[in-house]
């Protein structure tokens, strides 16, 4: 089959949304979007549509797409998908080759992506293209429920600027979606800082989306400055959920060995699925 790969900005956001959703109809983790959500995604994650790609056949029928984010000489491949009827035709490989070529043209020294654990066809493709596994992350949820143990620590709530100040000094690696630029771009980031009577302290930053159907907390990043991460984590999450008792919560890309995991589980979070971060140098 002849496969042509063209820049994604030849298509409208609505067309890209429809194509993306069609590539995901039978996906391991169902994540359809509407045009507004895709527009927000492109904005928040610095997706470059001109260097993102749509694959089509000789008749001009679309086969799949892939998007490329770019920051600081690093590329990020996302939303890669092929229509079910067009799989095993080399479309995924053609899209991936274009992503690598475009990232290199932009001056990337490294390219990142995340693949859902057990998505074997995609994982195999990325290994073939020279990507290496780096870390595994958890995606967790928490339904709205009362906080059973009221927090006892002293809390200071942080606005966007103060939350960004904290995040700027986060000492560990963050994936693309939780990175400083993504959180700054979203403009709906908040946070809190606590100090416990025993001197322990820490902070938590998150996105608070207050839309009609999406009163949600997401993109949680938690850090213990001093003390036991479980104790500090429980206090931080208890403050958060006591303040927002009706908010559904979605914690994405929490490192699978994060020392705060017991705190998440104590507050009622459960695992939805795992992602593997992979990277390839140029």
């Amino acid at each position, binding site marked *: 089959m002849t496969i042509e790969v063209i820049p994604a900005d030849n298509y409208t956001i609505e067309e890209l*949304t429809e194509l993306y*959703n069609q590539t995901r*109809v*039978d*996906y*391991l*983790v*169902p*994540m*359809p*979007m*509407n045009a*507004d*959500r895709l527009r927000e995604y492109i904005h928040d994650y610095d997706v470059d549509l001109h260097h993102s790609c749509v694959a089509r056949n000789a008749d001009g029928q679309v086969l799949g797409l892939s998007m490329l984010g770019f920051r600081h000489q690093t590329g990020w491949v996302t939303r890669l998908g092929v229509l079910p009827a067009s799989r095993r035709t080399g479309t995924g490989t053609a899209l991936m080759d274009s992503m690598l070529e475009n990232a290199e043209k932009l001056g990337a020294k490294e390219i990142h992506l995340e693949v859902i654990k057990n998505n074997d066809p995609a994982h195999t493709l990325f290994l073939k293209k020279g990507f290496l596994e780096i870390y595994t992350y958890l995606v967790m*949820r*928490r*339904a*709205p*429920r009362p906080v059973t143990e009221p927090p006892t620590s002293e809390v200071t709530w942080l606005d966007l600027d103060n939350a960004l100040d904290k995040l700027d000094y986060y000492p560990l690696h963050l994936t693309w979606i939780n990175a400083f630029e993504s959180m700054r771009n979203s403009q709906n980031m908040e946070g809190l800082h606590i100090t416990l009577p025993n001197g322990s302290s820490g902070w938590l930053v998150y996105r608070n989306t207050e839309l*009609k*159907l*999406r*009163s*949600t907390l997401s993109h949680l990043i938690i850090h213990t400055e001093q003390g036991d991460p479980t104790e500090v984590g429980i206090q931080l999450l208890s403050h958060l959920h006591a303040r927002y008792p*009706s908010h*559904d919560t979605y914690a994405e890309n929490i490192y699978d060995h994060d020392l705060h995991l017991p705190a998440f589980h104590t507050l*009622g979070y*459960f*695992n*939805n*699925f795992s992602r593997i971060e992979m990277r390839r140098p140029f």
Partner: protein
Amino acid sequence: MARILYIEDIQDNITFVEKIVKSRGHEFLFERSAESGLATAIAQKPDLILLDLGLPDADGQTLSVWLRSNPSLSTVPIVVLTAWTEEVARQTVNAYNLNGFLCKPFTLAALVEMIDSVLGKEPI
């Protein structure tokens, strides 16, 4: 006869469930997004909501919170029809106070049994 609302964005799934629901003599309504699903649920007061967890504007978990927080819908049974694994579906149903789940792909018999069970009817 019961009024059953299915909130799902994939046409093949809607067609499959519609045939089963109508064959059992129930009224069938459907919506393709969380926002329209919520509006129809409020307006039509269904006896049962079948809910997909992957919707384009907000996911099914978040929608279930909104459905449950509406006084007129707080006791309407909600059954999740999902592509998630059984373990995740079970945890979701428990955490979000829902009434049951079926993991896709499910059989005609499994859906009939679930509907009858949740509506409190003996299977035919």
